[in-house]
């Protein structure tokens, strides 16, 4: 992995924070070979797609594997007794 690729992680995460379609601070970026992996969870399919577009915009021509998942909520379950 060359030096440019190491800075690419920071550039992508900055873009994910600043782009208001996403505004996410906790998408994990992993570079393997010449591929970008996006890892984590987002609330909607729209934000998952936005992450993909942003990554392609920052690193044109670099393959992106979008492994982001859309958060699925369970029903609230039983309460906890606070002693």
């Amino acid at each position, binding site marked *: 992995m060359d030096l440019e690729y190491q800075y690419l992680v920071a550039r992508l995460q900055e873009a994910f924070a600043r782009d208001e379609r996403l505004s996410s601070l906790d998408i994990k970026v992993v570079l393997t070979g010449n591929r970008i992996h996006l890892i984590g969870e987002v*609330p909607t399919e729209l934000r998952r797609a936005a992450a993909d577009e942003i990554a392609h915009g920052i690193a044109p021509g670099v393959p992106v594997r979008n492994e982001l998942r859309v958060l699925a*909520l*369970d029903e609230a379950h*039983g309460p*906890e*007794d606070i002693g």
Partner: protein
Amino acid sequence: MIRIAAVGDVHFAEDTEGQLAPYWSRLADHADVFLLVGDLTNIGSPAQARALAKELSVVEIPMVAVLGNHDYHADDPGAVRSALEDVGVIVLEGSAVTLRVGERTLGIAGVKGFGGGFPGACGHAFGEPEMKAFMRLTERSATQLERALGELAVDYRVALTHYAPVKDTLAGERLEIFPFLGAFQLAEAIDRAGADLAIHGHAHHGTERGMTPRGVPVRNVAMPLLRRPYGLYCLDASGRHAMDTEARETCATMGE
């Protein structure tokens, strides 16, 4: 017994409209009060605040909130606050509110808080003006929280913050970012003033349960962590230790 529903970090925007109202509309069946601990919108825009307010309009129990860092991003936290207040949410920032729940009184003191870290790896108000300003915001938040908690004369006291008061509930997050996730001064304030429960959000990859050095239970209710639309917590009948049998049975069956 007081039944508390709490959540933070819903990061609401136009694209999440309708996702939470189906759960929140049934809150009155399970809880006496709904506490919201910041990052309620994704960027704090007026449009997102209005969308969130519409989603919250189905809630039929008292709602109390603090804002989070995302709610400040559009530089207009007042718009978020106003939209929430329009649907009856009580928004705290260095302040407190007392609610009556049946025969009991519940006091909630809240502040957004800020970062700074935890003993052994924390910032100090030293050096450049920017660093001093950073830490003084944290210290000011803690002072406000302690004062607000201390002024409550109630059966139960709950401290609400967006940032974490302890590092217990950050376990799972990367150690390098702990100073951006919370500050020990918030726990110190809670311990000095006393509380029955402290609730925060902000740490999506943390841990739900923790405790302050003096033993106040701390719960991280960031929705990405909980993976449910809210967490439910019961304070015991005396507000300290004893829960009578009837209250315990009610608490045990409440979430069914």
